[in-house]
């Protein structure tokens, strides 16, 4: 069942440049888009089309929020399903209407209470019959954390088709993922990882169901929040991705804490690598890694966290620039007045000199004619810096931030159906302290 659509290899820089030129890449953010402040949802499961990173169009099945709430696409099936953001202890009610050609349902692993009603008693839950059938799920989450929901009917097909989403359950303390100070964060982001075999989707679109053999599935698309790279970098809710509202381009400043909520939503595992620094994994499946429930004493550090289907992880990321051995702001040696708050914190945490304040960069960089540049290169090795680059180079790094790729390290997954680059990749941006972050 493996197809090759075409063979092409595009220069990554060229592709990114071309795409972003049109896109007008946004400012980036560090918040989670989703349905917040609502606890009753009218969802319809129905078909739609997504646009993949290299410009293909693929049929998918998704959940549409019919409520017109901010944080979703009103009435439009979306990939992934709407992110639901609630508080611990709250109950939600989802009224599900089925516009798919087969019965469907929703599962809520990790929930404390699920009361389901529907047309049909399915294997795992009550289902909405096809042709306008309905089901209702009343779901309660008593414990904060990151959860996922997905279809519980013909799961191998329906999850592949796109019926999957994330649920964020907030703790009672603002700025803490859990009821623990070890889960404190300044900003948060959600990465729901999925994979897709478009051949299955094509067979569904053409009604050739009897030709579908899911044991021969071969994913060739990989997504973060329903988008392939480089579309992951675009603003949320851009008009030209009408069924893929969510982006993934978190930004923080030095020494700030980012909470990364990772969700395995597809059918394959993905080793997710964070350039820039290790992450500190504090929770799995919405349970703090803790012996006492109060401190994250079982948290661990890693530079690549594998996320398998059904798993969720919460991890903290920070970037201090400590002990770099040179001053990443390019401060002059005698310029002690300009020590930033983060540099001061590093000096306090790691000892005098740990900020490397005022130390020059220890090597001479090659001449610009000897280098190939990223569009995200400011022209300067220094944070907040910038310099002249040859015409056509750089230009997408407005603030002189440091860009770090966050991506699947099974590098095959950095492609969009045979075309490199793309797939499961995005960036984290370390912005200069002066930059305002939403």
């Amino acid at each position, binding site marked *: 069942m493996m197809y090759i659509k075409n*063979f092409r290899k595009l*220069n990554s820089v060229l592709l990114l440049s071309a795409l972003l030129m049109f896109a007008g890449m946004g400012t980036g953010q560090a918040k989670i888009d989703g349905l917040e402040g609502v606890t009753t949802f009218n969802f319809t499961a129905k078909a739609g089309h997504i646009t993949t990173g290299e410009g293909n169009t693929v049929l998918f099945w998704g959940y549409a929020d019919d409520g017109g709430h901010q944080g979703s696409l009103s009435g439009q099936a979306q990939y992934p399903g709407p992110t639901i953001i609630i508080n611990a202890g709250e109950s939600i009610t989802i009224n599900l209407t089925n516009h798919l050609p087969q019965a469907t349902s929703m599962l809520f692993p990790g929930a404390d209470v699920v009361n389901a009603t529907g047309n049909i008693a399915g294997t795992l839950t009550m289902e909405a019959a096809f042709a306008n059938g309905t089901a209702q799920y009343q779901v309660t989450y008593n414990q904060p954390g990151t959860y996922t929901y997905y279809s519980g009917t013909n799961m191998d097909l329906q999850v592949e088709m796109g019926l999957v989403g994330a649920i964020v359950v907030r703790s009672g303390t603002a700025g803490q993922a859990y009821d623990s100070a070890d889960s404190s964060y300044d900003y948060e982001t959600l990465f729901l990882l999925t994979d897709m075999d478009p051949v299955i989707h094509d067979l569904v679109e053409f009604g050739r169901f009897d030709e579908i053999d899911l044991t021969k599935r071969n994913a060739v698309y990989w997504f973060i929040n329903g988008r392939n790279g480089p579309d992951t970098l675009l603003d949320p809710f851009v008009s030209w991705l009408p069924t893929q509202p969510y982006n993934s381009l978190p930004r923080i400043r030095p020494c700030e804490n980012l909470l990364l909520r990772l969700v395995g939503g597809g059918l394959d595992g993905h080793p997710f690598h964070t350039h820039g620094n290790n992450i500190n994994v504090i929770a799995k499946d919405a349970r703090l890694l803790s012996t006492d429930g109060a401190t994250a*004493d079982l948290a*661990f550090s890693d*530079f*690549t966290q*594998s996320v398998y289907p059904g798993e969720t992880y919460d991890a903290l990321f920070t970037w201090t620039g400590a002990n770099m051995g040179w001053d990443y702001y390019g401060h002059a040696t005698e310029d002690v007045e300009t020590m930033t708050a983060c540099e001061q914190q590093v000096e306090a945490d790691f000892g005098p000199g740990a900020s490397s304040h005022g130390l020059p960069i*220890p090597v001479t960089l090659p001449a610009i004619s000897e280098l190939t*540049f990223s569009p995200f290169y400011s022209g300067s090795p220094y944070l907040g810096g910038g310099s002249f680059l040859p015409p056509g180079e750089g230009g997408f790094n407005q603030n002189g931030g440091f*860009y770090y790729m966050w991506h699947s390290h099974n590098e095959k997954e950095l492609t969009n159906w045979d075309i490199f680059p793309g797939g499961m990749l995005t960036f984290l941006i370390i912005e200069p302290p002066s930059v305002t972050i939403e």
Partner: protein
Amino acid sequence: MRHHRAFSIISILALLFCLGVMPAWAEFSVQCPPDVDGIDTDGDGDVNNDHVCVHLSSGDGFIKMADGRDSYIFGFASHRLANSDPVVFQPEPGESRPPAESIGLPTSEGGLNLGATFPAPTIEVREGQKLYLTLSNVGMLMRPDLFDPHTVHYHGFPNVASIFDGLPDSAISINMGFSLTYFYNLVEPGTFMYHCHVEATEHMQMGMLGNIYVRPMQDLTDGTDLGYPSYAYNDGDGTTGYHVAKPLQIHSFDPNFHDANELVQPLPFALMHDRYPMFNGRGYPDTLNPDNIANQELYEAQLMDSIIEVPQGERVLLRLSSLATVDFYTVASPSIPMTVVGQGARILRTAGETDGVQDLFYTTHSVTLGGGEAKDILLDTTDIPEGTYFIYTTNLNNLSNDQEDYGGMMTEIVVQAAAL
């Protein structure tokens, strides 16, 4: 089994000179300044020896797979006067750019030599050292149509600046014919890895992958005897102590991809299907061969074995990492228990801190690694009788060298008579 190359090396070289592929302005240089700061950062008592240097070239070459097939690769080589010279070297006194003859700088002709090795040279450095790593892009002899830049991504380096991250998509990469020197202040011990990040799916599948690890300061005699000659981390209590270390990196190749690249065919990304599972660039039983393995040009391109020999009762530190580009692999040691003491180049304690309140070490018989994952594993042979034991993937179909059975991702650990 494999296709014969259409041109001899000589004719290609001649062709290249005619075309002027290697730019006439090629200018390789190595930055390896002496340590003059008067501070002893690596803790060995010598204030003048903290700088260490590595010079890698990036190019192409061939290796011999365990079933005899010749495989075209992209790769790094340690660019020294001789392959036997240490990968990591000290600067010459007083010279920030050492003379070419002292460190084996490639000339424009010398660069085009199909000199890539697989895996890339293993870089062993120590906490507290300052590493000046120079990459000279010597170009790809078999692919004169390519002008790919290259990078070194020091995978897992903490708090890296984007300029030295080796990520072409965020900063810079070095063009053919030139050198770029990366600087790393080595403050975190642990098992890392490195690879080229340019067109990562292609360059990594093609073989630009290697081991790098940083030994902790605790290895130096500091008056505290914690019972072992060496340690994985600054554990403070000897719990990561070991006698024998072995870096073991998971690799895997798709022969169709390598052939397509050699023959200048479209690259099958979507169909990428690895059929040569390896440790340290070799399939079994080549993993057991202590000698270098020469390729079809009689050039020794595979310099690394995976054999582990340990006196009974001693501990092995397995520095296990994966730079496979397609699949996860589960690696088992069914007889000798594996105690995982580190991952992601951090000690396996609370939040990866040496002073973490909980020791999170755990004992198992297999670990699973996706690309870009690393684990530090102790194998304690205290209760293990002398003999030959096996470390292999439990994804058992990968005990194959492509279509050859009894091969693949497997190596042996020989428990010898106890040391006297």
